[in-house]
């Protein structure tokens, strides 16, 4: 593993462009070909952009979802985009079509808020999870239900191991490995530090899961919550040894105002990239190599980062953040005497090899 200085010299991360959208977005992914960027909105749309250049020219949005579009996943076939929302819908799109329509839709994939979405390594199945405390596996081809797993808890996120094993992360900080065919939990990983019961509020949860490309490490992101209400807590990432189930490395960083790790990905060079969001105005992009004590790169010039999309070329990143000055009590009107909503700036970063 390279040291921090060497990694920084090699990548020299730079914020190259910011594209402001008109609404807030909570999810962001590049297509496998790298030519499209998709963002899931709080307005029930999937925004598409031509990502061939940093101009991010908007394409017609994908409409028909309800509530918030909470997760997106591009299929490895390069044709399909899967999306889920808080009203229980799962949709599949031929995303490159100019006026894309859903290839198929499940109107009641879950009873309510779908939080997580993952596509199996062989591309045959798509897994979803949500507040109805169930995980469901669907045929990626036609949406027929293959399996239903009783998670017994509000489940936030899912990931497939390269060998096809499914893991889930829940509100109470329990990560479960499933034998999907048998509908049983094989084993659990302990991330309970990511959960707090404060007064009568459940706070926290495992917010994101990912495997490294070799399948030897399972990585979980969340927070060490200190309170409900404001929801203060320090970002927390665990690196679990997949074979033994033990924690190989822990990164707890920042202040209580820094909140949650919302999204994380491994870079081809073996380090991890993550984004955080906490008290309004607080947001970080960090690069961390598990052998090091602290991240070797931290950017603090973006407010409230909720999603991170690495470009397939390895040289670019897109981050869905929030506009500055996004909070405040009471009536705040803009110059036109209108009540303004917040919006998402998409920040584009380059990782130009030195």
């Amino acid at each position, binding site marked *: 593993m390279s040291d921090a200085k060497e990694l920084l010299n090699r990548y020299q991360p730079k914020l190259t462009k910011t594209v402001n959208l008109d*609404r*807030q977005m909570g999810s962001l992914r590049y297509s496998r070909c790298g030519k499209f960027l998709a963002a899931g909105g*709080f*307005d*029930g749309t999937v925004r598409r952009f031509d990502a061939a250049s940093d101009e991010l020219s908007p394409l017609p949005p994908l409409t028909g979802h*309800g*509530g*918030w579009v*909470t997760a997106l996943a591009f299929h490895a076939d390069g044709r399909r985009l899967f999306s889920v929302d*808080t*009203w229980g819908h799962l949709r599949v799109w031929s995303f490159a079509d100019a006026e894309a329509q859903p290839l198929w839709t499940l109107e009641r994939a879950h009873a*309510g*808020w779908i939080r997580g979405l993952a596509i199996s390594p062989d591309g045959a199945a798509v897994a979803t999870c949500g*507040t109805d405390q169930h995980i469901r596996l669907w045929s990626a081809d036609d949406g027929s239900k293959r399996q239903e797993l009783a998670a017994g808890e*509000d489940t936030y996120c899912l990931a497939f191991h390269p060998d096809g094993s499914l893991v889930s992360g829940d509100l109470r900080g329990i990560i479960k490995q499933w034998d999907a065919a048998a509908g049983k939990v094989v084993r659990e990983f302990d991330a309970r530090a990511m959960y707090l019961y*404060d*007064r*009568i*509020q*459940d*706070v926290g*949860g495992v917010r994101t899961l990912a495997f490294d490309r070799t399948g030897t490490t399972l990585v979980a992101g969340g927070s060490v919550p200190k309170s*409900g*209400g*404001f*929801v*203060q807590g320090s970002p927390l990432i665990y690196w679990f040894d997949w074979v033994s189930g033990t924690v190989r490395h822990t990164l707890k960083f920042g202040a209580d*105002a820094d*909140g949650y790790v919302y999204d994380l990905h491994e870079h081809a060079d073996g380090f991890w990239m993550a984004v955080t*969001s*906490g*008290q*309004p*105005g*607080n*947001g970080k992009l960090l690069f961390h190599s598990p052998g090091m004590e602290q991240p070797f790169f931290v950017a603090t010039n973006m*407010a*409230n980062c*909720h999603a991170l999309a690495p470009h397939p070329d390895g040289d670019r990143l897109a981050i869905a*953040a*929030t*506009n*500055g*000055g*996004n*909070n*405040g*009590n*009471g*009536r*705040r009107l803009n110059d036109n005497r209108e*009540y*303004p*909503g*917040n919006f998402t700036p998409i920040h584009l970063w380059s990782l130009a090899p030195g």
Partner: protein
Amino acid sequence: MREPLKNDLLCTPREHQLSRRRWLSGTAGMGLAAMLRPAIAAELEKKQKQVLFIWLDGGMSQFESWDPKPGTQFGGPFRAIPTSVPGIHLSELLPRTATQMHHLAIVRSLHTQYEDHSSGVGHIQRGDPKNRGVVYPLLGSAIGRLMGAGNCGLPAYVSVKPGNGGFLSGDAGFLGPQFGAVALGDGKPPENLPRPATLSEFDDRQRNELRERINRRYAARRRPEVSQANEHVFEMAAQLKRRLDLFDPSALPPGDVERYGTHDLGRHTLVARRMLEAGVRFVKVTSYGWDTHGDNFNGHLSLVPKFDQAFSAVVDDLAQRGMLEHVLVIAMSEFGRTPRINGHIGRDHWPQAWSLVMAGCGIKPGIAVGNTNDQGTFVESDEYDIGHMFHTWFEALGVDATTTEYDNQGQPLPIAHEGCHAVKELLA
């Protein structure tokens, strides 16, 4: 970009623990009781009307409860669901309450004046009267003063809350501390209230006699209101000591605890029902932690279902027992929450357009009064301030707020903001 947290936004209520020592330490220095005109007080005393006041401290979001706007810019992730009243929809986080909608009246057009907790909590619970240089009583103390304790042999104003219990004299404002609340910390009787096992009945009696002699000597040199307040506190202690059965969980019907919920709000609401059944005039239930500046939607996903469970259970129980005829139920916060969703996926404070709910005792059931615009940002119909609600509640309880006054040592004071009026639509 970074905005530091302000300490005055953090909710850290500090109340004093009630102990036998505090009960028995006397109440020297208690203030002067404001007097209602005697004939009115006697008339109101006869009425058996009661109040259950559920206070969701910090600010429940109107979008995630009483005034959902699904599919709009500020509507959030949740859907709306139909209720037992055709045409009235609630957030999907309130499925049980939705089945009780035919008992409820929602006000969706509140527009109040305070956007921070430090001023909002007090002003809202005092009815935000005109400033006359005095501290008005909270609603519970006002009702206790205006309507008396009744003949149940229990304090007029009981507060069930998390944390410590105590005697909340500050609630009474200018009425004087004898109209404060007896607070049941975590729904339990004040610690050490029963006579300690190590103290014999004889010794206890002797000690009380000594205390009474000292009190008489103390009272002889002071205004009568002071000694009356002192006696009142001791009487409340004695009343609670006689009714410790109300705190005995084994006396509850099977299933009640599960039905209300094993969380604080469920347990405390169940205690409140028992207090109402025993005849307490005004019972307040406080739930803390509703100030969801961060992760509002996951916060409400956790909080609202607990409220839904407890609130629907108590409304249903009061209806089943015929008690809604004379128990006024109110559930509210100090304000609502912003339409705008901040970067921490939270909602901030919003007094401009918010909602509360009420039921029973002279309130028209099965209605939603007022409305906000399509985005939920501002009130489109007539705006109502908290003064309007106080007038409405007083009228529902049989107190004419347009003619009844407090007499604060000769200073006549209206019991509700004279610029406001009862909302006739809400009255049966």
